[in-house]
């Protein structure tokens, strides 16, 4: 297929590096360089003491010019460290950087076969033969440029979304917040105080809302939801439904900050919303100092860390401590007992907070998953492992520490954005460790408890983090993306059967069907893994720089055609 477009004569130059004695001390590089001169299409070879040195690089440039080389092979160390250097070098010599091929005869040859110099020589020769054969098939590639619209959409106007939006607007990007409710603030609006600092939630969130209102470049669209999203990194078209009015926004990046929901506590520990309530229902009572109870019992992990919801919601222990301390502050004579499994107060200030709660007389009783507390009308029976006996704890108010759960409409948003959810319905980031606020799809980011239950501190840093990730894109008028991407070449279009298997295997949603029902690859999203090419049922897709043709030519070079 490449013959049609490759009229020019292929002239490969091979540069064999001694790497001092690292390669040269094991095999005869001079002889090798001479011998590889005989391989097909190889027009020039030489050996260098250090091909990566200034002298070596100059030698490559000189040879390209003098011998009209149009493919360059360097046989030396590893592409993992030196490929960028040599690509740049041949670029300076006037060749497309993708017309370079690296052959590793040090790390994977002379270093590992020092005691078998003859075999190492043969292996190096084979590797160069294969490398040269691939080089013959290499094609010039252009880095793909994508225009970026320097505007962002933040979905969700809670503290995560507002933090992200504030940061982006301060960095000079036009930013929109789309909020489902009629006001900003999210869950903080319904909380009393915030742990571990003695700050009123409404006061705290009020300041942030004020900042949002006064921010330049920042537009808030309340009572609205996203109903359609088209496009890709740098170029999204989003449809918003605001009370029946449809509005279209054009943005370059999208941040998901939709937060999480409260668990419906029906059926848990005799929940009735009156005498047996949740921590969230307790908050307004504390705010209004409307607490008549004298004996308060709290149950942690109510509805979490079980088979149905196997996760720790991570904020409930601190919430319970905070409310227990608030109760003690209102009236130190009120008895507060917290039934817990493992108290979750990691880090510096939280552990201190737990200590403070103990100091203020909050009583802690551990229970085990196998022996759940038994809630009766006026008392809780719980087995206390610490004394090996069942305890009876009287209560006139029972408070359940229920977990945060994923929003039920996450699925709809996930489908619009083509991003995944995890087993509990929270959004799934690109990489749990190193890309905590990215999605695999470039241009879409995430922060706050939409991803997983987190406290306010972490919510805020994640909001900023999502802003930072978006900013890495929005800061540029255009961005360059990897040239070695997948394509459906014009000459292969007739092969495509429209089976859509490629769409399914692509980890980055870089393949879609366009309005003409044709497979289209969004170059900006492709990372060049080549799964699609290896899977395409009719071999219509081509992965540049690792084409079937190129890899097969390596196999033939080794196996003999």
């Amino acid at each position, binding site marked *: 297929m490449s013959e049609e477009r490759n009229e020019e004569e292929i002239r490969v130059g091979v540069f064999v590096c001694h790497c001092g004695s690292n390669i040269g001390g094991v095999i005869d590089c001079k002889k090798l360089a001479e011998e590889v001169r005989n391989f097909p299409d190889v027009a020039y070879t030489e050996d260098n003491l250090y091909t990566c040195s200034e002298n070596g690089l100059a030698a490559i440039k000189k040879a390209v010019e003098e011998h009209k080389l149009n493919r360059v092979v360097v046989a030396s160390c590893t592409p993992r460290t030196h490929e960028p250097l040599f690509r740049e070098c041949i670029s300076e010599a006037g060749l497309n950087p993708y017309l370079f091929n690296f052959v590793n005869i040090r790390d994977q040859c002379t270093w590992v076969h020092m005691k078998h110099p003859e075999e190492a020589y043969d292996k190096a020769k084979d590797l160069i033969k294969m490398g040269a054969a691939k080089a013959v098939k290499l094609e010039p590639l252009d880095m793909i440029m994508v225009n970026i619209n320097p505007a962002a959409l933040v979905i969700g106007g809670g503290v995560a979304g507002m933090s992200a939006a504030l940061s982006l607007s301060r960095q000079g990007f036009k930013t929109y917040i789309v909020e489902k409710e009629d006001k900003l603030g999210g869950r903080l609006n319904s909380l009393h105080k915030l742990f571990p600092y003695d700050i009123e939630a409404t006061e705290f969130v009020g300041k942030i809302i004020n900042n949002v209102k006064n921010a330049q470049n920042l537009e808030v669209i309340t009572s609205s939801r996203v109903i359609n999203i088209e496009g890709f990194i740098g170029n999204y078209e989003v449809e918003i439904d605001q009370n029946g009015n449809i509005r279209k926004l054009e943005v370059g990046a999208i941040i998901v900050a939709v937060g999480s929901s409260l668990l419906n506590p029906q059926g848990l520990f005799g929940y009735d919303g009156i005498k047996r309530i949740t921590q969230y229902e307790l908050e307004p009572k504390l705010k209004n100092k409307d607490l008549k109870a004298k004996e308060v019992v709290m149950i942690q992990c109510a509805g979490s860390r079980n088979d149905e919801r196997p996760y720790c919601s991570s904020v409930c222990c601190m919430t319970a401590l905070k409310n227990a301390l608030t109760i003690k502050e209102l009236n130190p004579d009120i008895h507060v007992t917290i039934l817990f499994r493992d108290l979750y107060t990691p880090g510096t200030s939280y552990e201190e907070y737990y200590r403070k709660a103990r100091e203020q007389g909050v009583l802690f009783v551990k229970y085990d998953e196998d022996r759940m507390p038994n809630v009766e009308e006026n008392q809780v029976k719980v087995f206390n492992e610490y004394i090996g006996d069942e305890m009876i704890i009287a209560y006139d108010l029972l408070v359940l520490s229920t977990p945060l759960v994923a929003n039920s409409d996450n699925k709809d948003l996930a489908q619009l954005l083509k991003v995944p959810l995890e087993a509990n319905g929270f959004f799934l980031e690109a990489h749990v460790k190193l890309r905590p606020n990215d999605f695999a799809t470039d241009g879409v980011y995430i922060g706050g408890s939409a991803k997983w239950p987190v406290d306010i501190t972490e919510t805020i840093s994640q909001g900023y983090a999502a802003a930072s990730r978006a900013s890495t894109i929005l800061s540029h008028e255009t961005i360059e993306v990897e040239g070695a991407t997948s394509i459906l070449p014009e000459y292969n279009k007739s092969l495509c059967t429209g089976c859509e298997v490629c769409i399914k295997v692509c980890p980055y949603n870089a393949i879609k069907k366009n309005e003409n029902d044709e497979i289209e690859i969004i170059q900006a999203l492709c990372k060049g*893994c080549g799964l699609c090419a290896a899977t395409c049922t009719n071999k219509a897709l081509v992965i540049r720089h690792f084409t079937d043709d190129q890899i097969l030519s390596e196999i033939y070079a*080794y196996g003999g055609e």
Partner: protein
Amino acid sequence: MRMEENRVSFEPKLLGFLCNWCSYAGADLAGVSRIQYPPNMRVIRVMCSGRVDPEFVIQALELGIDGVYVMGCHIGDCHYLDGNYEAIRKFDMTKKFLSFVGLDNRIRLDWVSASEGVRFGEVVSKFVEDIKALGPSPLSGDTPDQELLEKVKAIREAVSSNRMRALVGRQRKITEEENVYGEKVPEEEFDVLMDQAIKEEYDRHRILLALEKDSKSVKDLGIELNLDPSIVLEHTLTLKSRSQVDFQKIIGNTPIFMRI
């Protein structure tokens, strides 16, 4: 059966496909750490183990290479999220095909991380050792086993067939996600389906190859390929409906088929 001495002196010719991010880095680390291992394997770098098209593996064997190793990131470590899962699917299918011709133990799939320089050396050594024990590939040398070669060719065409590629490509989707009717095909059920398809396509591609040389009757095909004529007939009709074979002529009552 080859002579025992033969095996000892024999130096296998091996090919490895290494993913850029983990196993290639692991191979480099073996170098940095000066781990010594046998020099039998040549390496082709791919970005992801999932890029390794089954055709590559079969093609290598067809050319007489004694063993092919595919290496990628450990499960869960894939730089491209889940490319190595796709590698497993493709590899499993390839292996099943090769079991028909007894070459399945000449290919191997394994995971080597960027920190496993020592292990890279170990697994390569082991592979060399195991292939040595098997002896040279019947397809290697100047006089490869022609009958086997024919079969391997059929396998190469079969793994490249639309049906096999579609099955492998859809496998995860079918077994892990529900279809529009809310049904999910259990893994075991899918395996049965897959095994059947593998068997069918192997035979069909052998038929196609046999017809490539000259046109034949079902009976003759059956004799040549050592297959039950009723199965050959069934396959031939399927191939006809796929427009891959057609009637050439009818001699007496016997239809003669040809490849299109």
